[in-house]
């Protein structure tokens, strides 16, 4: 069991790290914190710098500038060994037996032979793979190989989890198992940071989200906090309105029209009552619905602004 840490304490601190590959800036002055028991989702386009950031945390890559701290102290090699890591490029020994492979990785992370074997049994059961202990990894289905890859990150009871695209290529059932395991780990006090393109999943699962673009953190916070910075939207169902209806309300823009339903976006802090009155002026209003932007919409907005 990990030591009990106050939930407010920031356990993983990524402090102004930068990394260049020749002329290409992969990560620029990026900072983020993850607290104990927190699930942190890392989203961004391909090549935004997520993988580079994670590799720097793991020490597989060295940062040009900045520092990564864990529980207040710089991450040394010995402390890094306690991080559970799932790289973007999956990889295990294809011809090695499943249980032997997990126990091997457990021992490499400093477990005793006996502890590694018992933990291997535990995780194979957790992922419903008991009975496949002596199978060669390459004989398993893609989904099961992914489970073994996650088990490889968990087998030595890490005190921090860094997972690069853990949901990529998983079937819906495997996504559920993976989500449940990540939530459990976070609830046990282990900070979990993972990247994903599945924005709905990130929205549902994560306590906090960071959006990265061109190597910079362009927004971070809880999904609600991010929404607070986004624009409000309203669906208006006004069947009597003409097809070219324009409510002419300042601070309100038409986003899309779907038959008698119209979607408007309001400027920040704008009152929606003027829009409602303009709609009522066209005739009956069957529906006037407040729409929360999804993480996907927020993402597009933020990335669009950052790119502009």
């Amino acid at each position, binding site marked *: 069991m990990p030591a009990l840490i106050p939930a407010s304490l920031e356990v993983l601190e990524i402090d102004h790290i930068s990394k260049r590959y020749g002329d290409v800036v992969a990560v620029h002055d990026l900072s983020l914190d993850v607290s104990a028991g927190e699930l942190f989702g890392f989203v961004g386009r391909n090549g935004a710098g997520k993988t580079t950031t994670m590799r720097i945390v793991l020490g597989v890559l060295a940062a040009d500038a900045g520092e990564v701290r864990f529980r207040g102290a710089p991450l040394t090699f010995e402390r890094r060994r306690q991080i559970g890591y799932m*790289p973007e490029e999956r990889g295990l020994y294809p011809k090695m037996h499943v249980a032997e492979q997990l126990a091997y990785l457990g021992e490499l992370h400093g477990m005793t032979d006996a502890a590694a074997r018992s933990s291997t049994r535990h995780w194979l059961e957790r992922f419903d793979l008991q009975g496949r202990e002596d199978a060669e990894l390459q004989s398993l289905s893609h989904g099961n190989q992914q489970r073994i890859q996650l088990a490889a990150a968990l087998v030595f009871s890490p005190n921090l989890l860094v997972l690069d695209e853990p949901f990529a290529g998983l079937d819906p059932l495997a996504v559920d198992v993976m989500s449940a395991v990540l939530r459990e780990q976070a609830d046990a006090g282990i900070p979990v940071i993972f990247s994903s393109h599945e924005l709905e999943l990130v929205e549902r699962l994560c306590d906090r989200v960071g959006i990265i673009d061109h190597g910079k953190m362009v927004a971070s916070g809880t999904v609600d906090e991010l929404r607070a910075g986004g624009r409000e939207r309203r669906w208006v169902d006004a069947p009597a309105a003409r097809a070219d209806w324009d409510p002419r309300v300042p601070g309100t823009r038409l986003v899309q029209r779907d038959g008698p339903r119209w979607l408007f976006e309001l400027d920040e802090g704008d009152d929606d009552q003027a829009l409602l009155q303009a709609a009522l002026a066209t005739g009956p209003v069957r529906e006037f619905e407040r729409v929360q932007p999804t993480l996907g919409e927020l993402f597009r907005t933020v990335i669009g602004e950052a790119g502009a």
Partner: protein
Amino acid sequence: MNARFLRLGGTRRLPTTFVVARREVRMRLRSRVFVGGTIVMTVLVVVGIVAASLLAGRTTPVRVGFSGGSQALERSFTATAAALGANVTVSDIADVTAGEAEVTAGTLDVLVIGTSTAPTAVAKDAVPSTVESALSLAAEAARLSDAGLAPAAVKSAMALVPIQLLAPKTPKDNENLFASLALGILLWIALGQWGNMVAQGVVEEKATRIMEVLLATIQPSRLLAGKVIGIGLVGLLQLTIVGAAALVAVHVTNLAAIPALGLASILGDISWFLLGFLVYATAYSAVASLVSRQEEVQSAVAPISIFQIAGYLLMYASLPNPSGPLATVCSVLPPFAPILMPVRMAASDVPFWQIGLAAGLILASIGGLTWLAGRMYTHAAMRIGARVRFMDAFRG
């Protein structure tokens, strides 16, 4: 072999290098390459030794049959043959035609016909030279007796001038050269096989992308050391099995008179293998870390393989004159010493300082190569994809 095999550790935390080496040993021991390779090499060596003993005629006596008047020669022939070191059995053949049929069929090696003073030897394709000499001497003695001369008196009158050597050379005959060459080839094969195994193991980890998982928990130099040690131990085990089989075969066939097949020589060969393996494995691992696909391994290690092939050719070139300048110089150079030195030592007497110099240079180059390989491997291990340039890996 199940997963519990070689279960060391139990409740102790083990150094990562040891954990890596143990995995290599476990995986290689159950591989077909090891099992099949060991069987093939053992069979080849044992068959080679048995064949050599048959050629040398030390186990199967030459069967000589005497017919008619020549039968009077049997006793003096047997005694002379024994004095010449030939292993023979004699028998009486009643009928010349039947005797010739036996020679044709291969149940008799030599048939002697004619009288005791004018015998003729009949054989299928050749008469062993010692048998021919023994028969001639026996016939000569019979002719002398026939002429009324005492063979002993004639022998003393015709004695050759005795020769006294002040610094005689140890006899190292053709059989010994042959055995040295065979051992050199075996060493060469083992070096190539296990050195390549290291190169492929390095690339396997890049190709399967497990490298990133590994490097997040183990320093590259330790990963490399564990791999080289593990694969080296398996290679050593294979050579020890083959060497033990060779010693048993040598003992059974009474070939122990060949110095190259003695216990000390075989133990020495295994030590040279270890040194050679460390030289080639570290060099192979350094260049193999530059590439990410198994198909590229051969071209990556080609610059190192050239030294190995040159060592093979030099082995043939130096055997006719194992103490000549070419053999002497090349056998102390680290890339060639692991093959040339044991061959030279088996084929001739090598001054101790040359052996010491060769071993010292190898140890020094192992030190340098380990440093170089560790540095290149560390820089290149995470660069998956296109081939990494040598200087980029060196500089980092």
